[in-house]
Structure formats: C-alpha cells, structure tokens
C-alpha cells in the first residue's frame, strides 16, 4: 500500500503536496495536511455525515430512496416560477456548470457564496482594475507580504508556510528578507509569526479607509506624515508602512474578510485597489499585487465558470431560458421574498446569513444538496446527500490565486452516493424528459 500525492480541499489554498495512504476503500493515513485539511479528510467517516436522502414529513425527517428524493425535488421545482439557487463554492467547476445550466432551464436566479465574500473585490475592480499574483510568484519573488483584515494562520493555515517561510527560485534568501505587515484591529494568531523587522498595525475598528486615504495622499512623499498618526497607528509605524509599500521589489496585499465584510459600500475596496494601482504607477523598480483570501475551496471557481458561460461573475437571473439584466442580488431576492423555492448546494445559509434572511429562506420549500449536517439541514424540506469532492469524486477547482487545479478521486463514496454534478445532472435530465414528454 503505497503513498500517493493528492490535493486537499480543506480550504482555498488547495495544497497539492498532501500524501495519503489508502487501499481505495479507506484513507488510512494523511501526511502534510493542516488541521483544516485533516478535518476535511476525516469528514469521510464523520459521525454527522449525511448518507441517505431525507424528506421532512410532519416535522421529522424520513429516509427515502434517491429516485424518490429526486422526484419530490422535481415536483417542487416544476411548481416553482421563481426558484433560487445558492452556494456552489464547495463543489467542482463541473457541478457549478450544471448548476447554471439547471438555473437556465428553470428560469431561476443563481449565485455563489462569493457574492458576500471575494466577489465584492471583483466587483470593485470593475471600476479600478486589479493587479493579481499567484502563489508561485509569491514563493519565488515576494519580499513584502501584507495581511489586511486577514487572519490566515486560522483561515488558510498553510499559507504562511508556503509564502513567508519558503525560499524562492529567484532569491538567494528566504524568510530573512521577507517583511510581513499585518493590519488588523485584533491581535490574531497570525501576529505570532512576526519578527523584529515586521510591522504589526492594530488599526482602530472601521478606520481602514482613513488609513488608505492617507497612504494614497502620501505614497510618494513619506516626509509629510501626520504627526499624530491616523486610525490608531502612530506616525513612526505609518512612515515604516509607507517606506515598505513604496520600496518593496515585489509585494502582495492579502485582502481578508476584515476588509471585505466591514463596509456596505465598495468605496473601501475601490480605494484600496486604487492605492495598489497608484503604487505600481509610481514605482520605479517594484510591483504590488493583491490576493483575495476566500475560505471555501472553490469560491473562485464559480466566478470563472459564470464569467465564461455568461459574461457575469454572479447574480445570474434567467428568463425565457436566457440571461437577463438584473440589479438583484441573493440578498435582495431573499429579503424581498422574490423566490418561491430554493436549491442550496454545499453551503449553510442558515448559519451564514442574518436571521431575518434565514427566516425568509426557510419559509419556502428548501432542497439541500450537501454531505454533512448544518443549521440548514435542520430545516430543509428535502436533503440529497452528495459525495465529498476531491476525495470521493474528482473535478476542477480554482485556487485562491485563480489558478485551476485538478482534484482526484481517492476512495469510493459510501452507499454509492452521487457527486454534486451527478445530482444536478439528474435534475436536469428529469426536467428535460418531462418537458419533452
């Protein structure tokens, strides 16, 4: 029983250096995975794994056959005129493609978790442009890493190993020439890796935009820094930050939820992206880029699949089997009760959304396609279990740096559970055959 190298789908870093030992039936050992990665592999035998299709009857769940669960789901979909599809960030790109095909067929609305996460950065970049980079570029070239509102030590645990402590091809040195700057109101676990040359900036909550505006104003003249500092950051640290930003040979800003989820408007993100463009325009020798730190392993994938299929990265509304223009978002659709059933794939909106939206979502028939228990599974009307992509089925996923990575099947799923792609295909087939009939 030899070891084989596989890709981990524990988070969006999609580490491709995990060694597992398996006989094809069970995963016996996992080497090189972080805590989140190990948990992902352990989910195969997790005690709360959903192994049978379930239907709610008189308030309680009953096990049913897959064919019956699909038929009942089709019944709900056929009786719906405004179906809503949401999730799709922990499934393969092939399943995302099928999700969009299904939405088109049933004239529904579809969006992914990206819309309340890194999709906001993509949307802001439509106004400003955006300089991206890849993990390989960071490993090989970067000398400045800025984590802005991103606690990567807990959210993407191996990101620091790969980027900060690595030794690149084009540099003779590693960690010793790399500077990290963390900008966060909370002294998170990520602060634990900081050395004497690094800069820890505990910014006052909600003052990020004030800091960015000062940096934009002063980015080429670090001699006129406000003497009192700004946003809780003193003038010495501000000066050090500016010097690093304007002198780094190859820098990257990791944008976390602390930035993405802190303001309703896109102004903060736009100003941050403008700052990066401004530095790049004025830099003589270096380059600054950004990287979005999304948590779910294929959140970036939905943006790519949707863009390639429709020209839009999210908020897809179909009518007459055609994509139509809409100003709606998943938030406005639920908030305005502009839906009459929902198909949730691989996510847990009841945990993720404000309770007022959850209340509206669960007031209509809800079909859940997922492999584990969640708050949404407590209140779904039908649950169709899916296998675990990247372990029990293969597919394509986009890493957080938007590089496509092929996922492998390692073991067979229990009870021959279908993949998300296969379940969605069966729903499409069922609808197509009834339309033909």
């Amino acid at each position, binding site marked *: 029983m030899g070891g084989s190298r596989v890709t981990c789908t524990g988070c969006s870093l999609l580490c491709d250096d995990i060694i597992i030992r398996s006989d094809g039936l069970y995963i016996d050992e996992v080497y090189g995975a972080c805590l989140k990665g190990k948990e992902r592999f352990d989910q195969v035998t997790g005690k*709360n794994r959903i192994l049978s299709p379930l239907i709610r009857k008189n308030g309680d769940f009953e096990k049913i056959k897959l064919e019956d669960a699909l038929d009942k789901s089709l019944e709900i979909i056929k009786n719906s005129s405004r179906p809503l599809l949401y999730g799709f960030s922990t499934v393969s790109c092939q399943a995302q493609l099928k999700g969009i095909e299904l939405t088109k067929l049933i004239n529904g609305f579809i969006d992914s978790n990206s819309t309340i996460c890194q999709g906001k950065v993509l949307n802001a970049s439509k106004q400003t442009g955006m300089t991206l980079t890849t993990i390989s570029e960071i490993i090989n070239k970067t000398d400045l890493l800025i984590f802005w509102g991103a606690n990567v030590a807990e959210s993407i645990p191996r990101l620091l190993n790969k980027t900060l402590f690595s030794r690149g091809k084009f540099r003779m040195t590693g960690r010793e020439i790399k500077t990290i700057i963390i900008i966060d109101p909370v002294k998170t676990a990520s602060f634990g890796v900081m050395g004497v040359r690094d800069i820890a900036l505990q910014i006052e*909550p909600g003052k990020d935009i004030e800091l960015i505006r000062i940096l934009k104003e002063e980015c080429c003249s670090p001699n006129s820094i406000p003497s009192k500092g700004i946003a809780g950051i003193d003038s010495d640290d501000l000066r050090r930050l500016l010097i690093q930003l304007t002198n780094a040979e190859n820098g990257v800003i990791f944008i976390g939820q602390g930035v993405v989820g*802190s303001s309703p408007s896109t102004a903060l993100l736009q100003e941050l992206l403008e700052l990066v463009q401004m530095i790049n325009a004025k830099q003589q020798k270096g380059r600054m880029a950004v990287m979005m730190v999304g948590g779910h392993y294929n959140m970036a994938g939905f943006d790519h699949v949707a863009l390639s299929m429709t020209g839009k990265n999210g908020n897809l509304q179909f009518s007459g089997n055609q994509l139509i223009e809409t100003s709606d978002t998943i938030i406005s659709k639920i908030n305005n009760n502009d839906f009459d059933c929902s198909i949730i794939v691989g996510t847990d909106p009841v945990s993720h959304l404000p309770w007022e939206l959850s209340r509206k979502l669960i007031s209509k028939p809800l079909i859940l396609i997922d492999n584990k228990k969640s708050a949404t599974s407590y209140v779904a009307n039908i649950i169709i279990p899916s296998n675990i992509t990247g372990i029990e089925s293969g597919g394509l996923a986009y890493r957080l740096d938007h590089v496509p990575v092929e996922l492998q099947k390692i073991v067979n799923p229990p009870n021959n559970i279908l993949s998300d792609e296969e379940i969605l295909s069966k729903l499409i087939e069922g609808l197509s055959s009834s339309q033909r009939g």
Partner: protein
Amino acid sequence: MEMLVNTVRMVDNDQLKEFSFGDDISLKENLAVCFLNPIDSKKLDITPNMNLKLSNEYGQVILKIEENKNIPVGTILLPVSIWANQITGIVEGQLIFKNIKVHAEVTEEIVLDIKDLLRIIKK
C-alpha cells in the same frame, strides 16, 4: 454598554468542525460564545456563571463569555455561526459582519441551543 461586534472564523470555534464531528451540546459550547477584553469584562461587572446579552436593531442573542486580552477594548469577537447572525443585518443592500454596534449587558438568562434558535427563527 455600547460596543462593536466583529464576527470571525476561528480554528477552535469552527462551525464546520462542530457540524461534522460534534453534537448539539458541543455546538453550543463552542459557538454560542463571545470573546472580550478583561477591561470590558470588568466594566460590565461580569461575574462567574453570568452570560452576556447583545442587542441591536437587528435582534438579540445571549452568549457565554470568555476573556481574551488580545481583543481591543470596546470590541467583542463572535465566531461565525447562527448565534452571531442573530445580531447581523443588511446595510445598503449588503451584509455587514464587522463593526456592528450592539448594546451589551450582563444577564442571568440562559444561552439557547440551536433547536430553540431555529424554532424562534421559524416563528
């Protein structure tokens, strides 16, 4: 006392881990919890076995209290969960998970478990 809430993902208080491997008790133990600076804890006059009630225009939630000196004074951290989302809402069409204004007060009221919360949400 008026404070700011930030919802965050934490390795030790992770809903995905609890839903995959835990039960309703461990879910409540690890997610229905808030972290605040000991200075705030003192200001709020928190005593053992008391909980914290957070309320704002969106709703209210009761949570177990844990002190952490790394959290800035005036800020409360909540792990992302159904409990945290009792006090989040929509601003200008967007969901806001950071810098949420809340009124914090000590209470003897009990922390609800997930089934009670879902029952209330359904109503």
